[in-house]
C-alpha cells in the first residue's frame, strides 16, 4: 500500500545575491539582486508502507529540503504531495500526529529537562495512551537499556546517547512514518551500530515506514531495501539496493603511498596496467593528496589483489587503504549509464 505519493515536487528559494565590498553593500540595500536556487527540482516517487528508504546524494543535493517538505513544515513551490492521505503542508497540525522526525543536529526533546520529563511531555502532546507509552518504554529498556539515561538532562547527554533518545522519542507515539535526516552523523562505529539496530528493530516490530538520509554507505547497506539517489534537486536513481550493490558493490578504491613518484612514471604505470590486465573499463592511477595515489577497480573485471601484487613488485609500497566506492563516483557512473 502506498503511503507517500510525490509528483514533480519542487522547492525554489529566492536568495539575495550579495555584491562584494562596501559599495556592494550599499547597492544591495537599494537594488537587491536575487537569484533562484532550485533546491528540489521536480522529484516524483511512491513509497510503500513499511519500507525503509535510503535517500542519498552529495552535499547540497536537496535531501534535507525534501524532508522538510515531507514533514509539512516547508511549503513546496510546486508539485503534488500526498502522504498518509494528508496534504502535509495544508493539514500540518493533523498530519504531524502520525509522523516522527529526527534531525541530526536538532532536538525533539527539551534541552534543559531530564529525558524522562521530555518523554512525559511528548506523551501528552501526542495523546499517547498509558498502555502504549508503558509498552514502548519497556521495549526501549529491554533492547537498549535506555533507563540509565532517563534522569539526565538532555543537554548533558553525549551525541550518541542523545541520538538514541531522539529516535526513541520519535517512535513513542507509534507513528506510521518516520523521517531521519542524518541520524548517524558524528557517531562512532559502536554507537552507529546501536542506532542502526534500534531503527531496524523498531521498523520490524512496528512496521513503520522510514525515510532516511545519510552520507554513510554503511547505513544504506544495513538498513535499506531501496535507495533513492538525488543530485542537484533531481532524482537520478530509484531502485532496489540489491541492484545497486550488484553494480557498485564490486568497486573498490585502492589508495597507496608509494613515496616520491613523478607524473611521468605514473603515466607509465597506467600504460603498463593497460597492457598487462586489459581492463574493460580503464583503470587509472591518480595523485590524490601529495603522497597518496588512488585507483578504482571493478572487481568483477579484475581482482584487486592482482593489481596490488603487480604494484608491490614495482614499488616500495609504504601504506595502503582499501575503501568502497565514493558516492561522487557512483553519481558519475549513474550519469554515464552504469545503472541503465
Amino acid at each position, binding site marked *: 500500500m502506498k503511503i507517500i505519493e510525490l509528483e514533480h515536487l519542487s522547492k525554489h528559494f529566492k536568495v539575495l545575491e550579495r555584491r562584494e565590498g562596501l559599495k556592494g553593500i550599499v547597492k544591495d540595500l537599494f537594488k537587491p539582486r536575487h537569484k533562484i536556487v532550485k533546491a528540489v527540482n521536480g522529484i516524483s516517487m511512491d513509497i510503500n508502507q513499511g519500507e525503509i528508504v535510503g535517500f542519498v546524494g552529495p552535499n547540497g543535493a536537496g535531501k534535507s529540503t525534501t524532508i522538510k517538505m515531507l514533514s509539512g513544515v516547508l511549503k513546496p513551490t510546486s508539485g503534488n504531495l500526498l502522504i498518509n492521505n494528508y496534504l502535509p503542508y495544508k493539514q500540518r497540525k*493533523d498530519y504531524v500526529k502520525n509522523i516522527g522526525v529526527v534531525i541530526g543536529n*536538532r532536538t525533539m526533546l527539551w534541552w*534543559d529537562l531530564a529525558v524522562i520529563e521530555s518523554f512525559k*511531555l511528548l506523551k501528552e502532546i501526542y495523546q499517547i495512551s498509558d498502555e502504549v507509552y508503558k509498552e514502548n518504554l519497556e521495549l526501549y529498556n529491554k533492547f537498549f537499556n535506555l533507563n540509565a539515561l532517563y534522569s539526565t538532562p538532555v543537554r548533558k547527554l553525549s551525541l550518541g546517547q542523545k541520538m538514541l533518545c531522539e529516535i526513541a522519542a520519535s517512535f513513542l507515539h507509534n507513528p506510521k512514518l518516520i523521517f531521519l535526516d542524518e541520524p548517524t552523523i558524528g557517531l562512532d562505529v559502536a554507537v552507529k551500530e546501536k542506532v542502526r539496530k534500534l531503527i531496524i528493530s523498531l521498523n520490524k516490530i512496528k512496521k513503520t515506514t522510514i525515510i532516511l538520509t545519510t552520507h554513510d554507505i554503511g547505513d544504506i547497506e544495513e538498513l535499506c531495501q531501496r535507495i533513492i539517489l538525488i543530485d542537484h534537486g533531481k532524482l537520478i536513481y530509484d531502485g532496489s539496493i540489491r541492484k545497486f550493490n550488484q553494480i557498485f558493490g564490486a568497486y573498490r578504491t585502492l589508495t597507496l603511498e608509494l613515496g616520491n613518484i613523478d607524473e611521468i612514471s605514473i603515466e607509465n604505470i597506467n600504460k603498463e596496467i593497460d597492457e598487462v590486465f586489459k581492463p574493460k573499463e580503464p583503470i587509472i592511477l591518480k595523485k590524490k593528496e601529495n603522497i597518496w595515489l588512488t585507483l578504482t577497480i571493478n572487481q568483477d573485471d579484475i581482482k584487486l589483489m592482482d593489481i596490488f601484487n603487480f604494484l608491490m613488485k614495482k614499488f616500495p609500497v609504504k601504506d595502503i587503504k582499501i575503501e568502497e566506492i565514493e558516492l561522487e563516483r557512483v553519481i558519475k557512473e549513474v550519469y554515464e549509464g552504469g545503472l541503465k
Partner: protein
Amino acid sequence: MLNKYKKYFLITKNSILTTATYRFHFFFSIISSILYFIIYYFLWYSIYNSSGNTILNGMTFSQVIVYICLAYSIFILFKTWTEWGISRNIISGQIMMDLVKPYNFHQANLANALGFVLFNFICITIPVFLIIFTMFNSTIIFGINLIFFAISLCFAFLISFSIDYSIGLTSFYTESIWGISITKEVVIMALSGTLIPLSFFPDSIELILKFLPFAAMYHIPVNIVINSTLSILDYFIMFSIQLFWIIFLIILNKYFFKHAIKVVTINGG
C-alpha cells in the same frame, strides 16, 4: 476537554523547571531592579523638590513612587523572552521541531511564557516589591480592588504576551529581531506609564495613550491599585479596553502566523 489542555499545563510546568535551572538569573534580576528603582526614586525626589509643590498633576510624591514601583514590578513580571525564544529557534532551525509537534504554536508559546511569569512572580516580583516597599516606607491600601487588580493583571499579561508573540513572528521573515525588540521595549517604557505616570502627559495625549495597548498593560492595573475613587463605570471601561486589545491582538496574530508559516524557510540541513 481538560485532557486536551494537559499538554499546555505540562509545558508551563516544564518552563518553570527550566527557568529554575539558571538560578543566577533571578538573583541578578532582583539586584538590577532595585538599582533601577533607586535611580528613579531620586529622580522623582528631585523633581518634586525643585518644583516646590507637594502635588504634581494630581499625584503626591509617594503616589508617584508607588505607581512607578508597581508598574516596574509588573514590567519585570512580564519579561518572558518570548520573542527572543522564537527568533533563536528560527535562526538555528530548531523551529522545525516546534512545527512537527501536533500542538498549537501560539498556545505552546503562551504556556511557556506563563511558566516564566509564574517563576518571575515568586522569585523576582515579590522580593523586589517587598524590598522596595520596606525601603521607602510606602503604603498601599488593599481591599476589594485587589481582586480587580488580579483580573486586570491577567488581562495585561495576555496583551503583553500577544505583543511579544507578534514580534517573535516577525522573525519568520527577518530572522533576527534585535532592532524591533529594542524598539518595542522603548515604546512600551515610554508610553505605558512605566517610566512616567500617564497623568504627567498633556491631557490630549494622555487620553490617546489610555486607549493604547501599552497603557492597558501597565497603567490600568496600577491605576486600580492606587486610585481609590474608581466607579463601576471606570472598571467597565478599563476592562473593556483590555479585552478589546486581547481579542484584537489574538485575531491579528492568528492571521499573522498563517502568513508567516508560508514564507518561513527552515534553516539548516
